[in-house]
């Protein structure tokens, strides 16, 4: 057991724990905070996997912007605690079963896939996963998706504004 493997297992446990907490929290704010923790954990996993740029992007955008947005909305809409549903009694057991089945399927796919990924991984170059290398790819091969994504962001912004505009009563 190398140190990297031990660290990996530690990160994995924390990630799963925080994910479960997201599910199990009665309070929406707690769920959001646990999710932030989850994202940070995943970011450190990225670092472990030589994805430095992405790790940073994850923290900046995901944990920093998206989750903050989430928290804004939670605050806006009020703190509500959920009671267990009385109407859909069978939903929860069925959901557990199905998720379990999904998990089993994933494991079966993994085993069956047998992609031979257990062997030792090759070493990577120095600049693997650096902003420069990703950026090089972004601006050459994936330029158009990059530009389109910027338009997408614009559209999303406009959409969000339009949706939340106060309705025109004077029509």
């Amino acid at each position, binding site marked *: 057991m190398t140190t990297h493997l031990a660290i990996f297992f530690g990160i994995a446990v924390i990630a799963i724990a925080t994910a479960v907490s997201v599910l199990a929290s009665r309070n929406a704010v707690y769920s959001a905070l646990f999710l932030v923790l989850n994202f940070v954990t995943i970011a450190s996993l990225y670092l472990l996997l030589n994805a430095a740029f992405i790790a940073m992007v994850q923290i900046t*955008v995901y944990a920093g912007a998206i989750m903050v947005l989430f928290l804004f909305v939670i605050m806006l809409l009020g703190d509500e605690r959920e009671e267990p549903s009385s*109407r859909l009694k069978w939903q929860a057991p069925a959901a557990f079963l199905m998720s379990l089945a999904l998990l089993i399927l994933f494991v079966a796919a993994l085993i069956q896939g047998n992609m031979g990924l257990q062997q030792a991984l090759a070493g990577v170059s120095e600049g693997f996963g650096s902003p420069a290398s990703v950026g090089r790819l972004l601006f050459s091969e994936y330029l158009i998706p990059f530009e389109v994504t910027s338009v997408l962001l614009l559209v999303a912004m406009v*959409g969000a504004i339009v949706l939340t505009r106060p309705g025109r009563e004077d029509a």
Partner: protein
Amino acid sequence: MNIPTDYVLALSGILFALGVLGVLIRRDAIVIFMCIELMLNSANVAFIAFARSFGPSGAGLQGHVFVFFVIAVAAAEVAVGLALIVTIFKTKRSIDVDEVSSLRG
């Protein structure tokens, strides 16, 4: 840094299953949304794992690029989705998804 890719993929799978469970169980619309982000995130983990395993060969960094785009799209989606939830809240005064059941029958 020799983490077997299978283990990372297993983690990704677990996270995804948890996300699914969360979507099905929780009644709060915002929490459901968060679980969806969790699912997206697990997919990102899988991408990075593959990028690392393909590493020095050409396909390696493409995984990163893909994750980049996924994050960007996730951000846009959250913006619009939350705006929708806010709008619905203005009418229904509740974010319980069980309240939007008028299409029953």
